[in-house]
């Protein structure tokens, strides 16, 4: 076991999968000699050549659309969208087209492609380098949407995404890239998509989250522990398909739920998770399902006090946990 960062884990996953399967290739903006703006693809062009690490023109729709075409031909493209904020021109090719190929051809064709997107805020990125668009994709049947929080999960899930027979949108939280480090096994492993993970076992409240927020939830859980409240932190890891059983099992155990996400509140993943709990575990609840989320403003502002006001943090999450605990 070695301690690695999220960005190293992402890079290793791609390296190993490209070594394993000659059909895997990367395309995106600056992914070649530059190694990607976050250096996720650093060293890959030297190892695999420019035929498999393709610097594309600045054209997100066709990055997705060409990857889709290549996937229908049998390749396994990893399309990198430089920032999730730039994914909107590609939305039609991902949501409109890729998600519907298998259903619309009755399984004659399918799309084994991955769209990798650095996302999220807390990096002083302003309106157009901080967005969390995962809910838009999670709404779409035909897509899988993964939002890992740790190096271990990022590596195992990205490998699974590359091997998956369906289109996977893989959101990597930018703030976790170098901030979050953790143990990554030296030996080969793959993690299943669609399986949540209990990052901290507890008995009093279930705190459900994904991505960077998982770490803030863990910090908040430690604060609550000092106050005698034992919080379970459930990391969804995949936001489509949701691991319903893991959610319900934890809720049946604790009877109290706080859902946390950085994305804004309305129509976010929290709404879906809350609906699942309300529909299927209503009788187990001792308190209202509560959310701590980004606020309903169009995007995360640039200036530090404004960005800090937007971002959920351990203190805000701890306040939410206290509210649920004391109901």
């Amino acid at each position, binding site marked *: 076991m070695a301690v690695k960062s999220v960005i190293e884990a992402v890079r290793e996953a791609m390296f190993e999968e490209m070594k394993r399967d000659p*059909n895997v290739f990367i395309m995106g903006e600056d992914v070649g000699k530059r190694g990607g703006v976050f250096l996720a693809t650093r060293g890959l062009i030297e190892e695999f050549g420019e035929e498999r690490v393709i610097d594309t*023109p600045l054209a997100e729709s*066709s990055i997705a*659309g060409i990857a889709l075409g290549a996937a229908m031909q049998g390749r396994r493209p990893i399309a990198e969208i430089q920032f999730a904020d730039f994914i909107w021109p590609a939305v039609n090719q991902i949501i409109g087209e890729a998600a519907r190929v298998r259903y619309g051809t009755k399984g004659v*064709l399918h799309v084994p492609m991955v769209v990798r997107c650095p996302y999220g805020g807390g990096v002083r990125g302003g309106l157009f380098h901080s967005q969390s668009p995962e809910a838009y994709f999670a709404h779409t049947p035909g897509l899988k949407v993964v939002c890992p929080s740790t190096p271990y999960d990022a590596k195992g899930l990205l490998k699974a995404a590359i091997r998956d027979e369906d289109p996977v949108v893989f959101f990597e939280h930018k703030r976790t890239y170098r901030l979050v480090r953790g143990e990554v096994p030296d030996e080969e492993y793959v993690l299943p998509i669609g399986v949540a993970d209990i990052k901290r076992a507890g008995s009093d409240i279930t705190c459900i989250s994904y991505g960077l927020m998982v770490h803030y939830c863990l910090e908040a859980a430690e604060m609550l522990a000092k106050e005698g409240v034992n919080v379970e932190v459930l990391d969804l890891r995949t936001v489509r398909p949701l691991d319903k059983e893991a959610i319900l099992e934890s809720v049946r155990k604790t009877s109290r739920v706080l859902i946390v996400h950085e994305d804004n509140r309305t129509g976010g993943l929290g709404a879906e998770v809350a609906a699942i709990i309300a529909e299927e575990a209503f009788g187990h609840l001792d308190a209202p399902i509560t959310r701590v989320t980004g606020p309903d403003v169009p995007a995360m502002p640039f200036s530090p006090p404004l960005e800090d006001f937007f971002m959920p943090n351990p203190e805000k999450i701890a306040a939410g946990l206290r509210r649920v605990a004391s109901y």
Partner: protein
Amino acid sequence: MVRSRNTAATQTRKAAEHAVAEVLTPDVLLGWYSTMVLVRTLDERAWLLNRQGKAAILASSQGHEATQMGAVWAAVRYSPSLAIFPFYRGLATAIATGITPTEALLSILAKAGDPASGGRQFPLHGAVMTPKLKVINISNVVATQIPHAVGYALGCRMSGDPTVTMTTFGDGATSEGDWHEGMNYAGIYKLPVVFICENNGVAISVPQRKQMAIVNVADRAAGYGMPGVVVDGTDVMAVYEVVGEAVRRAVRGEGPTFIEAKVVRLLPHTSDDDDRRYRTPEELEDMKRRDPLKKFKEHLMEQGILTAQLDEQAHKEAKEHVDRATEAAEAAPFPDTGDFYDHVYASE
């Protein structure tokens, strides 16, 4: 035939003409004519089925047949294998690829036996795959298939697959960003793609002069570093020739070609459209003079290849064929909902 001043296209012209003379025997031409008559008869029948309330929606290929069929026939003839990404107006494309009238009508009537999507999609959308010929049309959102075709060709190059990729679209599609992005990428990497613009001069109701500031869309090809060829898309032999050239260019590894086939759209945009709101009777009469079927018939008669008797026979056989197909398709079952949830994801 008008051509843009493009050396690559001109250089190969002589060789192409030679090859065309070689294959286009009277028998071949008569076969083409019969098939075009069959497609026209089928198209008219489908329209009738729509008016009877049996077919929900149709985009007729009347007026586009020479381009759609000539292109497929040339591409099949000159490529080792072919992947086609057609647009929504592709009945004649479909029949040229070997889809039968019965299969087409199963698709038009949204029956379970629809070979492209089992009735899930609009007529002839989905995928029909054989080892040598793949027809892929996963969407009817305009121009989205352009990057798909380019990506498919990229995949072929990566895997050493000698398949040539062809995509068809209307003039309206050339205003879309996906068209530009796909053309640009194919140009940069010299991918084996043949782009065929079936320019009928109108995007639903919007005339070309309101879509672009140029007369020939093919002029844009230069901006993507590929030859741009303008052809009379109502002349099946002319289309066959230029597409044949483009396909051989692709096979030789010389990269993509853009072909602008000037066609006429003889019917409204779809069965839900009423073109009397935006086209005059005079315009429609003028277009009928450029009807590709009529032009081909006149040409073959002038050449003494087609006789009135053979023409009558072709129409009679087409009607009988389409009658049988209609009967079979109407009697065929609709899809049931037993597999409604299948194929959302790979089964575990």
